[in-house]
């Protein structure tokens, strides 16, 4: 494009200089047209060349087909090769803080779990105790009822003779008479 511009400028100057000589003007015009065509052709070729450029898969960063690469073999782009060492106090403290927070959480969780289990156990124990107490109470009640029944029976038996006092008196009071 730059070449075509320069040629057009040159031709313009030439035409301005020789206005009275049309012949020479023709002569000058002919090569100008040729050169223009040439430049056009070149640019077209260039375009064709540019279009033909083939990008490789690596350039595009497209994942390879059928490319299951084992994780150990896989190399990440733009990453440092080899081990990453930790030696400065700050990063070590950061790691330690992270680990300690994790452990703290674990311990808290364990304590909470133990407390909850203990609570559940305590509740179960109380419930079992209550059950035993209620069973005992029922038993005591039944015993009481039976006792009551027995007592009433005895009382009734005791009361019967009192109702007909004559018999009772004749039975109980034995009199001995001496002539």
């Amino acid at each position: 494009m730059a070449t075509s511009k320069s040629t057009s400028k040159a031709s313009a100057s030439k035409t301005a200089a020789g206005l009275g000589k049309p012949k020479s003007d023709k002569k000058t015009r002919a090569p100008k047209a040729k050169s223009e065509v040439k430049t056009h052709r070149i640019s077209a070729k260039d375009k064709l060349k540019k279009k033909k450029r083939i990008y490789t898969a690596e350039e595009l960063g497209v994942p390879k087909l059928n490319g299951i690469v084992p994780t150990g073999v896989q190399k990440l782009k733009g990453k440092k090769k080899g081990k990453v060492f930790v030696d400065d106090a700050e990063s070590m403290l950061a790691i330690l803080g992270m680990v300690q927070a994790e452990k703290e959480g674990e311990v808290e969780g364990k304590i909470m779990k133990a407390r909850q289990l203990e609570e559940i156990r305590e509740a179960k124990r109380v419930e079992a105790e209550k059950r035993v107490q209620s069973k005992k109470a029922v038993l005591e009640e039944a015993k009481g009822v039976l006792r009551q029944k027995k007592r009433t029976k005895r009382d009734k038996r005791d009361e019967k003779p009192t109702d007909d006092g004559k018999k009772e008196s004749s039975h109980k009071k034995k009199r001995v008479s001496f002539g």
Partner: protein
Amino acid sequence: MRQLTQEETKTLFSKIANYTGRSLNQLIEPVQDASGKPGERYVFRIQNSRVYYVKEAIANLATSIARPNLLSLGTCIGKFTKTGMFRIHITALDIIAPHARYKVWIRPNGEMPFLYGGHVVKAHVGRWSEDCPEHQGVVVYSMNDTPLGFGVTACSTAAARKLDPTGIVTFRQGDVGEYLREEDTLFAT
């Protein structure tokens, strides 16, 4: 001898943090001396899969010794297994004990059974830290506050109260008796 990687550091700290509380930071931070000046910094170094806790100056000096010739330096904390786990050694007791979170004190009649590699039974316990959950790392002390080893609780403090006297309270993981029993393998592979 080299520095630890991020993964290794994390594994190491998570193991030590089983036994210690918040004060573990003091291991890494340079301790201030009496005059208030920052003291010497301690670092962790790995050599033949063993991790050492060593003064930075000594670690720097040790770089002049070839790896095959360097046997040991500083205090050995433990070793990394082939599976990437960390096994803590009894030599780390001096580092753990001052920062211990949960403690178990054992009576004089329980000291010898523990030092011969036995677990801690309830009958031998003099006292223990309150509110200790189960499967938690503890440091074992004698009644005169001498650290004897470390282990893992078998049950929580509340559950241990209901235990019979022969019941195991703490599973032993390391005791100072290992200095004699494991003499051959403790310092050399």
